[in-house]
């Protein structure tokens, strides 16, 4: 390699973004790269915005990604993709789940959920949007949204498919392996 590659994973607390970043981290070390994964636990898990950074390459210093520094933004929710937009590197790629989850200021009526987010993102960036929730349901569990999205992202990396599947096998509990493998394939096929 090569320059450090920076992948930002954003979503809502409870959606399983941490597992996604751990699968990604686990996959890249199998290829011998240096890697740093930065998570924030605690308050942000309680339904708030959750941001995880994964950076890998020959030698990685900062565990965080700055504005304008993300090669890929993997978003578990539309509004969170929009919020993360300033972090995208020029020419970077946004992969987004079409799911919408109203944040509390929208629920209380203090603000409105922005309209046509997908359109706005596409106007300034290269965007692939999928309905990961439906695909997860097809795979057998709505909880597998994160692995559907991992599948979608897999093609944005130089990590071979077998490495991804092997990492998923060693990361998720055995009884959910079939669902997760199917979820990965469904996401992968959409990329």
């Amino acid at each position, binding site marked *: 390699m090569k320059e450090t590659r920076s992948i930002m994973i954003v979503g809502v607390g409870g959606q399983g973004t941490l597992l996604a970043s751990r699968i990604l981290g686990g996959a890249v070390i199998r290829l011998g790269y240096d890697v740093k994964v930065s998570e924030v636990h605690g308050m*942000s898990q309680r339904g708030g915005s959750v941001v995880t950074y994964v950076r890998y390459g020959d030698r990685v210093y*900062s565990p965080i990604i700055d504005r304008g520094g993300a090669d890929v933004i993997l978003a578990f929710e539309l*509004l969170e993709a929009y919020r993360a937009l300033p972090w995208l590197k020029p020419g970077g790629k946004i992969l987004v789940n079409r799911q919408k989850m109203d944040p509390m*200021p929208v629920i209380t009526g203090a603000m409105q959920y922005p309209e046509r987010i997908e359109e706005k993102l596409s106007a300034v960036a290269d965007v692939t949007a999928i309905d990961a929730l439906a695909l997860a349901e097809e795979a057998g569990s709505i909880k597998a949204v994160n692995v559907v999205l991992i599948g979608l992202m897999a093609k944005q990396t130089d990590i071979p498919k077998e490495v991804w599947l092997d990492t998923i096998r060693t990361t998720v509990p055995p009884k959910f392996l079939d669902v997760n493998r199917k979820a990965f394939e469904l996401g992968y096929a959409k990329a």
Partner: protein
Amino acid sequence: MKKLLLGNAAVAQGAYEAGVRFVSSYPGTPSTEITECMATYPEEEVFVEWAPNEKVAAEAAIGAAIAGGRAMTCCKHVGLNVMADPVFTDSYIGVGGGAVFVVADDPGMHSSQNEQDSRHYARAAKIPMLEPSDSAECLAFTKAAFDLSEEFDTPVFLRLSTRVSHSQSLVEIGGREDHPLKDYEKNIAKNVMMPAFAIKKHVIVEGRTQRLKTYAKTSPLNRAEDNGGKIGVITAGICYDYAKEALGDRVNYLKLGMVFPLPEELLRDFAGKCEKVYVIEELDPFLEDACRAAGIDVIGKQIFTLLGEYTPNGIRKAILGEDPAPSVAVEETIPGRPPVMCPGCPHRGTFYVLKKLGLTVSGDIGCYTLGAAAPLSSVDTTICMGASISAAHGMAKVRGKEFAHKLVSVIGDSTFIHSGITGLIDIVYNKGINTVIILDNSITGMTGHQDNPTTGLTIRKEPTRQIDLITLCRGVGIDRVTVADPFDVKEFEQVVRREIAADEPSVIIAQRPCALLKSVKYSGCASVDAEKCRRCGMCMKLGCPAISRDPGSGAIRIDRAQCNGCGLCQNVCPFGAIGKEGD
């Protein structure tokens, strides 16, 4: 073997390899996982526990070290405030087996009530402090801390920050070293800190700091990187990584792994070789002040903020004047997504009732601090662990009986044991009439489900004697103790009305387990009967993230992906319009 480890997990691995025998902590983000990870090592090798609070944890660790075993306690920055008393005096006593105090600061306040810089404690308590910048250093520095502790007869601080604790990077795993239990001998002059002995020990402590300074000059923990540049950067911890990312090999570095005491000579030698020297450190000008005191001209907080976390872009801009990479701007205002109580959270029922009754709510530290957020907006004050009860006592005494009858304290089960019980004793002893609501959700929720003395399980999930909150409250003199279910909102409201009206102190135990516990089995999903629903919005007042209003039609809708079927919204709907799917 290289493994990708959280900084916190690497500290645990380092302590394990260093032969630690005793670890006692109270959970606190971002430090919690260290002690959780410790509990994954064999119990024959290391005794691990959750203590009721940080002071108890530190005292237990100090005792274990005096008794000859290597010992550790881990806390977040505000936890260090709680344990400060034994820590300052243990600086005088020193150790038998090595003692390490791990403290994790939270710049940016991801999960904290203040942004204190714990490095000041090192200087104030005259205890050496190491600061790693990634997981590999977390492991290595933890081991070094134990060795230093025994070599210099002092406890040693290991300072982390959120980004170090919660970032994963590669670590080389090693085996456990053999550090046999040291002999225990009665030594009154060393271990009894009464004035006659402490006066002599203070002299030893000052001498120790001088010896540590000499050590720091040549210690491999402090490392100069000469890249032939004219600019020098003095830094430590995560800021070293940010600086390397931002400035690469264009500048020289003095990376300090030991941030107290600082070797003035090393600082002066480094600065002398550079035309300009910057100090890069988050929060306070701790290293900067030390440089200035040593007569070194440095640039620090004139160009760097005292607030929050740093980033490589910010450093690049401040030092090189280079603007950050161009980024895409978002023109419209995006609604924020603050943390909220989870769907099914038992606290939601409590705050719904407290808001309805318009009470003054003295709050505490835990998930339920979120009771201050809209739309519940119920909590009036949050200070620190335990303050909900003691602060309410002060409020009631200064504003009188009428005010006290409209005032409640809310505190979690774990927080109550931590330091709420002493406030309750204050109320009983000093004839208060306050009502305290213990939010008993059967777990320490906020930090991610740790057991505590009220859960009946140890950190290793072994059954143990369970503290009974009712007996405990009665034991300190509370005659009025009521247990109520916060999801039975009508009954709960009656109980609160009755207890706040009483002219004696009372405790309400709001009992319902955290919805995220595996033992909690809510099922199904709520659904709105469009014919019965009058769109009054009563259910929206719960602030449940699964309930929202369709912006077009105004109809109430329930998000199936989020709803867990807890049933609270069914209980508050005045028209019986909410049922369960399939019912």
